[in-house]
């Protein structure tokens, strides 16, 4: 006890020698050691101030309770001071950082939830790990006050702005650039559309084309070209429809290739008919004299003017085309029919043909005279190839 008392007196010269006091000082001594173990030596004046408090306040409590009270008070004083310090530092910063200093748990969580930043969550985790040490929020507050709330926010925003295009650019190639290109293209497109619209308004006859679906890919032609291409295609399809109406039996066919096939066949058949008719005329007029010119000039206009009314004209073409596609025998079979038809026409116009020449027996004679067969077969062997 004496040794203890001496030790206590040497350590604490201001303490009283009463056993109560001694006990109290012993307690304070152990508390001091505890405090020393936990806190840095810079907080020694706090302990001294605490130990100067009258011992009557902490008289009738057990040792552990006293120790607990001492530690609590120490911690509270420290906390209050830290709070004050942080308030000074964080005055311009955002509100939740003030709350951080007051109590460590909630505000940081709210902060992390409010601004989804990874750095804040890290801070909160560090705060969680050493909750007792109050220095951590202080430093946190300092660093945050240094950067400033708004500044950090703007920084993160800028970072995000930098990050997302970079990521996209690294991920998808040149998407960002492409997007920019597309945007510019769209704007130019709009301008072009506007200009075309104004042009059409000025022209007031040109139908307004619909360019909504125009979409130029990267590397393709620019906008004016694609628009021209679209207009060209529309024109072609319109003309193709016209041609389809012109050519018989072309309405059933679908597809551009099929229509073109039909057109080619029709043009070929017409050209062959011309050839065949010229051949026929060459055969029938051995000297090309045309001594009957007056007859033709008189009669043919009458024919020509008559043609729309007579139904024979419609019959005329199919029979002719039929005789082109097959052998000459078929053509000779058809001929009496034709001659009958022409007599119908001619009977109304000027010269009544004698009935003898409508006889089919006259045809073999005619063929023998002109050597018709060989040339006819030659005509049909030379086809068009593509």
């Amino acid at each position, binding site marked *: 006890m004496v040794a203890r008392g001496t030790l206590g007196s040497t350590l604490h010269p201001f303490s009283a020698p009463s056993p109560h006091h001694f006990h109290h000082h012993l307690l304070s001594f152990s508390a001091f050691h505890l405090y020393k173990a936990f806190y840095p030596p810079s907080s020694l004046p706090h302990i001294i101030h605490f130990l100067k408090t009258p011992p009557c306040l902490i008289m009738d409590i057990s040792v552990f309770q006293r120790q607990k009270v001492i530690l609590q008070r120490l911690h509270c004083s420290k906390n209050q001071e830290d709070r004050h310090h942080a308030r000074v530092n964080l005055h311009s910063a955002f509100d939740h950082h003030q709350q951080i200093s007051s109590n460590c748990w909630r505000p940081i969580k709210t902060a992390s939830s409010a601004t989804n930043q990874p750095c804040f969550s890290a801070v909160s985790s560090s705060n969680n790990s050493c909750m007792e040490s109050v220095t951590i929020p202080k430093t946190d507050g300092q660093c945050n006050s240094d950067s400033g709330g708004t500044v950090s926010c703007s920084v993160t925003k800028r970072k995000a702005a930098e990050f997302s295009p970079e990521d996209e650019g690294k991920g998808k190639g040149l998407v960002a650039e492409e997007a920019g290109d597309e945007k510019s293209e769209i704007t130019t497109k709009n301008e072009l559309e506007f200009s075309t619209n104004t042009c059409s308004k000025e022209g007031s006859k040109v139908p307004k084309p619909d360019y909504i679906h125009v979409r130029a890919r990267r590397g393709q032609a620019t906008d004016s070209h694609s628009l021209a291409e679209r207009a060209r295609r529309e024109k072609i399809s319109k003309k193709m429809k016209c041609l389809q109406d012109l050519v018989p039996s072309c309405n059933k066919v679908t597809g551009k*290739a099929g229509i073109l096939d039909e057109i080619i066949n029709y*043009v070929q058949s017409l050209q062959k*008919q011309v050839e065949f008719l010229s051949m026929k005329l060459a055969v029938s007029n051995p000297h090309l004299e045309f001594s009957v010119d007056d007859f033709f000039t008189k009669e043919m206009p009458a024919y020509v003017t008559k043609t729309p009314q007579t139904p024979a004209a419609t019959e005329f073409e199919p029979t*002719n085309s039929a005789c082109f596609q097959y052998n000459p025998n078929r053509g000779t079979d058809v001929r009496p029919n034709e001659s009958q*038809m022409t007599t119908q026409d001619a009977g109304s116009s000027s010269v009544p043909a004698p009935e003898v020449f409508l006889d089919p027996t006259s045809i073999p004679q005619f063929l023998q005279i002109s050597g018709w067969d060989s040339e006819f077969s030659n005509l049909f062997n030379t086809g068009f190839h593509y």
Partner: protein
Amino acid sequence: MQNTSLKQEFLKNWIKGLQLHSSFNKNTTIFERRKAIKLSADIAIASTRNSTTRWSRALIADASRDGSNKTLIEKISGREVPHKASLGLIRCSKRILKRSRFARRRAAPVAGLIAKKLVKSRTRALKRLVPGGEGMDEISLIKETIDYIVSLRVQVDVMGRMATAADRLIPFKTI
């Protein structure tokens, strides 16, 4: 009907050409006669268009390439024979067309390739059929084809009537 005037004009031109031809050479073979008839018919149908269409100009230019037909053409159409300069122009435009065609589209979709090839081959065939169609682009080719078909119909109709009329006349002569 607009075709009647066309038919009359064609007939007039054609008969003019035939008369010219018969006045030039009397004794001819059947092939020569056929050629002369066809040539005069072609020039007549081309001259009905007054060289407003490309196919008619090409037809007259093709006919005038022989040299011996120049007088015939000039008489029928009543106009100067076009020079070779126009042909050169057409060839030049064709070259440009070809180059532009090769310059375009590198990666076409695989599915449409066959259809495109078919259409291309058909278009080439049609270009060969229509006179002067080699140097045309697609729109003008279709326009010219429409016009050419209309005039070919006229030609065929009139020539067919002529042939039937001549048919009736031959036995009459031989007898």
